[in-house]
């Protein structure tokens, strides 16, 4: 015993290190990313260690489990970039069945833009909540009279992500049915404008909620540190009331809450304005085009779920000049390219692009150094600049302008 324990730590470290290294080497191409060995990277054994930190099993352990205990190996594993590749299709699963060339589909859909879609759009709008919560399925079911039309509508819906990849604006079902063309104008708005607004974002939006009480007490925030556009339908972090069972009669307040994804939360509550600022955590993966395509897919999904809301795509806030100069990933040039691509998603009708960087940029076109401590986030006192920008750059229905003016008057009587 004495002899066994004498070099327990050294031998133990050595044995476990060899195990993890073997695990990393053997598990390549199946559960770990394929990597070329490079002394500049972390040692091989960090792959299984990271896996453990993600709450998963290293390769050899899950192999043994599969071989001897029949527990299936998780092969569809989340290797980081896996997320984005099948993201667009993941958003609307039903198009997996459609074996039509997506481009053809787009053409088809836009050719037939007039007749079938009108009725389909009608169904979605008039059915209201039911159609919204059931998504695409409700569209085809809802309009039983026009089954074939419904089909066409479905394929149109499916084509949205594909279309977004070409950076074309997704076709809007409501467009044709709208009784009159609504004209939106950019204007300043009072605080009350944000009463029915939702903010979706990463840690920067979290900061906005924490250090902008005027906004926090009015608006709703679905924001979380390290949220990405890909987390929209994957990360359950929004606290929402459970969907009441059929015939539930109690008050909504008595319902228990649960954690749901942003996508799910949007099926349960409607908003009038939805502000999105995402994209910082995505800078290290994909291209401006692939990012904007995936972003576009999310925006059109939100349009489906929240047909009455106007959506603000906020350009990604810059990082400071110092950060941009020294970091491989977080560069303002990359941010600008992505913002450029994001701006094309706007349609001036329901989706608007705004860029708050003009409120926080310095002479380098970067986040002002004195506004940030960590070169990425605004300091508490700087969030007012962002909010100020949002208040001065809102889009409102032309017809509502007098009301907005009145609200502004009440807020600042001296003007």
């Amino acid at each position, binding site marked *: 015993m004495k002899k066994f324990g004498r070099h327990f730590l050294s031998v133990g470290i050595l044995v476990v290190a060899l195990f993890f290294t073997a695990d990393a080497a053997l598990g390549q191409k199946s559960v770990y990313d394929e990597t070329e060995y490079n002394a500049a990277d972390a040692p091989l*054994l960090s792959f299984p260690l*990271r896996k453990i930190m993600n709450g998963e099993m290293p390769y050899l352990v899950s192999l043994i489990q599969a071989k001897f205990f029949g527990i299936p190996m998780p092969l569809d594993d989340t290797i980081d970039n896996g997320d984005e590749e099948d993201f667009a299709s993941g958003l609307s699963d039903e198009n997996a069945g459609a074996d039509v060339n997506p481009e053809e589909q787009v053409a088809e859909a836009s050719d037939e833009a007039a007749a079938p879609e009108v009725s389909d759009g009608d169904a979605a709008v008039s059915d209201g909540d039911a159609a919204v919560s059931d998504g695409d399925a409700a569209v085809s079911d809802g309009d039983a009279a026009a089954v074939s039309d419904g089909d066409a509508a479905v394929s149109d819906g499916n084509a949205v992500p594909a279309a977004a990849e070409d950076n074309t604006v997704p076709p809007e079902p409501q467009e044709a049915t709208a009784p009159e063309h609504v004209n939106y104008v950019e204007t300043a708005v009072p605080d009350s404008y944000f009463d029915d607004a939702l903010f979706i974002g990463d840690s920067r939006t979290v900061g906005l909620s924490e*250090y902008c009480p005027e906004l926090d007490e009015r608006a709703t925030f679905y924001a979380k540190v390290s949220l990405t556009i890909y987390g929209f339908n994957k990360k359950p972090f929004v606290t929402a009331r459970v969907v009441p069972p059929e015939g539930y009669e109690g008050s909504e307040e008595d319902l228990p809450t649960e954690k749901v994804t942003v996508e799910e939360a949007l099926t349960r509550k409607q908003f009038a304005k939805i502000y999105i600022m995402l994209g910082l955590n995505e800078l290290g993966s994909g291209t401006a085009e692939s990012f904007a395509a995936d972003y576009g897919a999310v925006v059109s999904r939100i349009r489906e779920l929240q047909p009455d809301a106007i959506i603000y795509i906020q350009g990604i806030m810059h990082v400071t000049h110092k950060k941009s100069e020294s970091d491989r990933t977080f560069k303002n040039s990359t941010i600008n390219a992505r913002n450029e691509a994001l701006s094309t998603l706007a349609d001036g009708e329901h989706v608007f692009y705004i860029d708050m960087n003009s409120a926080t940029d310095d002479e380098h076109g970067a986040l002002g150094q004195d506004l940030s*401590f960590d070169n990425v986030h605004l*300091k508490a006192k*700087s969030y007012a600049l962002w909010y100020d920008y949002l208040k001065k750059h809102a889009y409102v229905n032309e017809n509502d302008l007098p009301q907005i003016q009145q609200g502004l008057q009440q807020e600042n009587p001296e003007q």
Partner: protein
Amino acid sequence: MLQINPNIINFSDLSFIFRFLPIFLLAYYVLPARLRPLILLVGSLAFYAIGDPMSMVVFAAAIVVNILFSYKCHNKSKLFLFLIIASDVILLLAFKFLVSYGNIQTLPLGISFFTFKMVSYQADLYKRKIRECPGIIAVAAYFAMFPQVMSGPIMRYSDFEINNILSGTEDEFMAFKFRKRLHLDKIEEGLMFFTLGFAMKALLADYLAMMWNEIGTIGYESISTPLAWVGVVCYSMNLYFDFWGYSLMAAGIGVMLGFPFVRNFDHPYSSKGVGEFYRRWHMTLGSWFRDYIYFPMGGSKKGKFLTIRNLFVVWLLTGLWHGVTVNFLVWAGLLLIMIIFEKFVWTFNKKLLSVIGRVHVLIMVPITWVIFALPVKEDLFNYLGRMIPVSGSGIAVNPGDLVKLMSMYWPFFVGGFIFLIPAVYDYFEKHRKDLHIKVVMLLLFWICAAFVSTKAGNPFLYFSF
């Protein structure tokens, strides 16, 4: 061209632990024993070259010049002793000023430490504490040795030369079986200390540092008063476990190579006063100032006035050594005042002295760390202004900030408080040869490695916004 991860010089980085260290240990113990000083020198130079290639010239030049002068110092030449010490000190100060005026970005790696080792070496030679002038390779290896080159501990040459494994005298003629066991014993012993330090760094200090960084992200003018006070505790513990952890790792690597364990921290926060605190905090720096500045000037043996003068000089230099910005002088000045009061003013009443001493250590010292942490005047005033909010209620303060941060970081405070209890470390030290402690350390080692793996080579996971 082979690319090497520059993080390899960071003891808590997996590249160091699983690449540099095992390769070095193999070379050190498998190659012939008489080559060990050379292997230590070559390995250390390689370590330095990876860590800071730009400063390699400065480092190498300092080593060569010091070796050349050392022969004269050994001959009791006061002039040459003065010349070499002056040039070492000027070298250090020059770089400190260059950095603080923005001419260069960072100090050469470890310059504060290797210059101090050099000065102590020359003085020890002159005073014949080192009897025989050692070989060139041994001295160069002493100056350069990688476990200590970055941030100490400042080991004396006397601790270097008693390493019988380095010189090969202990195991040269041993049978292979016994030699192997001796080597493994040393590695095992060193790994125990290394792992404990690794845990302090990776599980406590790194997370406390993240919280301190979040306080900065909010902006010092916008933190709530309770958070400002908790921030003081957060930074104090971050600094303590970062440095103690590093020191344990460095000393542990030293033990793996056959050196004696160099103690650098001895539960400073259980001290009864600031004076004692700094005899137990960064002990190798404190004893360096004591042996090469304070005692040569007469120490406390020549009356009250000269004692105060000597303390003043020591603390002035301590402040400058940490940095040539004003905040370090203020930091050192406050400590000096507390020490003088403890030594000469509060002594009239034993009870009072012990109460004030504890207040100094547990409240004033942490506050001085904030001064130490914030070199920019506005930041410091903002921070102190939030601690004692006399001048208003701050800008855009969110009163919920403390609750939010503590809900994320409380486990690291709990862990920190546990390691503040001297009995915890003492138990480890006493029972470190017992199997149950070894099992705990093995677990701890891999937990740390797993935590560190999420950061290493993947800044993306670490910095997710």
